[in-house]
């Protein structure tokens, strides 16, 4: 990362140096120039801003989505924040962060650390393979994993073969293992993206830095901490922000594997919101949960961005 700001500032100054010539052609600001923003802004307002504000409004009503709504003040929020079931649902969302953001980042960093020491043949091939889960339709991913986790699936087959048959179970149907099992699917999907991000970042690092470190007698660990990790800070923060967002809005994997069960052990916020809005037809409660979820995502991604920037 160290060289990138300087590079970008140099391009800026280059652009700045050219500007006077072009600047003469630029007319001063006029209100009608804002008109160019209109088409994009209109779409943004209609499809993003208005629905967000509407969701906020609905969250104060009891509404079935069809017949007239009834104002209930903060009742939906109180119901969400006092009900142990919904709180545990948000708790599951936080657990998902571990699997969607933290684990993939750690795994990808580990592999990248090795890559900086060892030259890997067929890098392009591995990069494609590792990225593949990202581009597969989640339904396909979920169905494949449902089979892997099934009572008569390959995981239990291996366990039986190793004489560990007593450990075998329907991994997605067991109260103790369902949540981590769903989470690990997320890890599998996410870590390819982290890999590709980090590989890109590492390739940008000046090889001379590593040579210098090695000349100074730094071991692999020291090298990683002193050069690779700080250089990847921007990529790590992007990976974490994407991971946290994906974790908290995880819906399709749960939908296609456990439907939130067994019990409510894999019920996550997005699934709860869908169910409340479209199955239970309590649009107000669903909106309140959506508002809370948005706040949590904003807070967490904001916090990540801030910490990473400060450390930088």
């Amino acid at each position: 990362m160290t060289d990138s700001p300087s590079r970008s500032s140099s391009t800026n100054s280059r652009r700045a140096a050219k500007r006077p010539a072009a600047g003469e052609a630029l007319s001063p600001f006029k209100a009608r120039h804002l008109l160019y923003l209109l088409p994009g802004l209109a779409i943004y307002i209609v499809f993003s801003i208005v629905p967000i504000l509407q969701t906020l409004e609905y969250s104060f009503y009891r509404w079935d989505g069809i017949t007239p709504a009834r104002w209930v003040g903060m009742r939906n929020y109180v119901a969400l924040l006092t009900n142990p079931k919904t709180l545990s649902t948000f708790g599951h969302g936080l657990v998902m962060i571990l699997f969607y953001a933290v684990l993939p980042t750690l795994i990808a960093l580990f592999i990248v650390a090795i890559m900086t020491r060892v030259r890997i043949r067929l890098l392009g091939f591995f990069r494609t393979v590792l990225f593949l889960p990202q581009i597969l339709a989640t339904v396909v991913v979920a169905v494949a994993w449902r089979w892997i986790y099934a009572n008569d699936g390959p995981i239990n087959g291996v366990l039986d073969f190793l004489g560990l048959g007593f450990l075998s179970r329907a991994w997605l149907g067991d109260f103790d293992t369902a949540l981590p099992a769903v989470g690990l699917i997320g890890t599998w999907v996410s870590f390819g993206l982290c890999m590709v991000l980090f590989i890109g970042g590492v390739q940008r690092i000046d090889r001379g830095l590593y040579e210098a470190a090695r000349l100074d007698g730094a071991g692999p660990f020291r090298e990683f901490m002193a050069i690779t990790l700080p250089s990847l800070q921007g990529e790590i923060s992007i990976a974490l922000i994407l991971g946290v967002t994906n974790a908290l809005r995880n819906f399709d994997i749960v939908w296609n594997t456990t439907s939130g069960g067994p019990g409510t052990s894999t019920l996550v916020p997005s699934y709860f919101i869908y169910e409340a809005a479209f199955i239970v037809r309590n649009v107000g409660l669903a909106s309140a949960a959506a508002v809370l979820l948005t706040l949590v995502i904003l807070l967490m991604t904001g916090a990540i961005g801030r910490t990473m920037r400060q450390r930088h």
Partner: protein
Amino acid sequence: MKRSLRRLIAASVLSLGALAQVGAAELTAPVTQDEVSALGDVTLRVWADAGEETTLDKLIPKFEKAYPNVKVEVTLKGWDDLMGTVVNAMNSATPPDVTNGNQGFAIMGTMVKAKLIRPLDDFISVYGIDKGVPPGGFASYRWNETGTDWGVGNIYGMGGATQPLGLFYNVAKLKELGIEPPKTIGELEAALKKAQDAGQLPIMLGNASQYPLGSHVLGILIDMYSKTDETNAWIAGEKGSTFDTAGIRKALEMLKSWGDLGYFGKGYNGRSLDDAVAAFGKGEGVFFLGGSFNGAKLAAVDPDGFGFLLLQGDSGSYVTTGTFGTPWHVSSKTKLEPAALAFLGMMLSKDFAQAYADVSRLPVADLTDVKPTGSMHASQLAAARDLFGHGDFVGYLDWATPTMQRTMGASAQELLAGRTDVDAFIATVQADWDAYQAERQGQ
């Protein structure tokens, strides 16, 4: 001149209004060919559950031939997808003319309350659909006009194929084990034990989506030990109803004991319902408890390999969860009402019953004269006849509140996993019910 023109326009507007009134008026005779032809070339839009596909494939060519000016356009949806979208679609400016829905407050209740669907009482009596069927079967389609009270008032929907919950069995396995098809819950228990002792999986269950353990399997047991009226009153949200009855307690204890005894085998919470039906079709498991609608898939594997039966309650009569099936509705906004009613009229007629039977379904219009696809379908038809002739319909438990499917499904899994007990199960379910009834009355 000007004034007379205005008067003429006013008069024609009035007469148009009157015409519209006539269109919305009660039927006094079946829709005629002329009434449908008068619509001109039109497209009748139909939303249906994917399970209706094979039946609609037979109906539509027949209908389009009889009414050449109408083209039928079907949108098929998976059950969950249909449940998530149908109310909003019916509320839109361009709703489907005819659609599948579901009983209960969340779907049908909302549509009645918002006046999105047309009452069908006149249609049902004019077309003679109520002839020869038990009147109690209509209860789950009845609502008061404000959509707040259920089980009374006008009929807002009608199904084509009855779907009682019952017991499937593997014919060859029963023979091998030397067990007669059980008639009562006591005989079933003995059979389950015998199957297990012989090293067989007693009950095939696929409960990955928290269904059918907490709704259908438990429902069948509750039917055995509870009074029909009490259960139906509870489902309909009648004041003072409770889930805490001796019969329900007994059913829950039995479900728990079946789980403890390992009658459902291992890993059923990780197996989908479809996979379970497929595995049962391949010969895994002696019994399968669930809706008759699973039979079509089994019959496709082996039309004579399986049997179906309803259990008799203590009274000796057949008691089971079931109705006339997934309801069909007509949009109250449709501009093609004659075509929509003619479409349903043809679908629900005795003439069309064999088409249902050909795909191993159980047509409400005729359970006696249709030709079965095999011995399993024959046993299903016999079971449905028993139910229609001298049985009691009970509603599905999950109709009770919009959240009940989740509440009961999750609690049933927790009960069998030892994470909750019968008392807590009943308390959780009743709390869900109480909260919804308070909400409903408050609104």
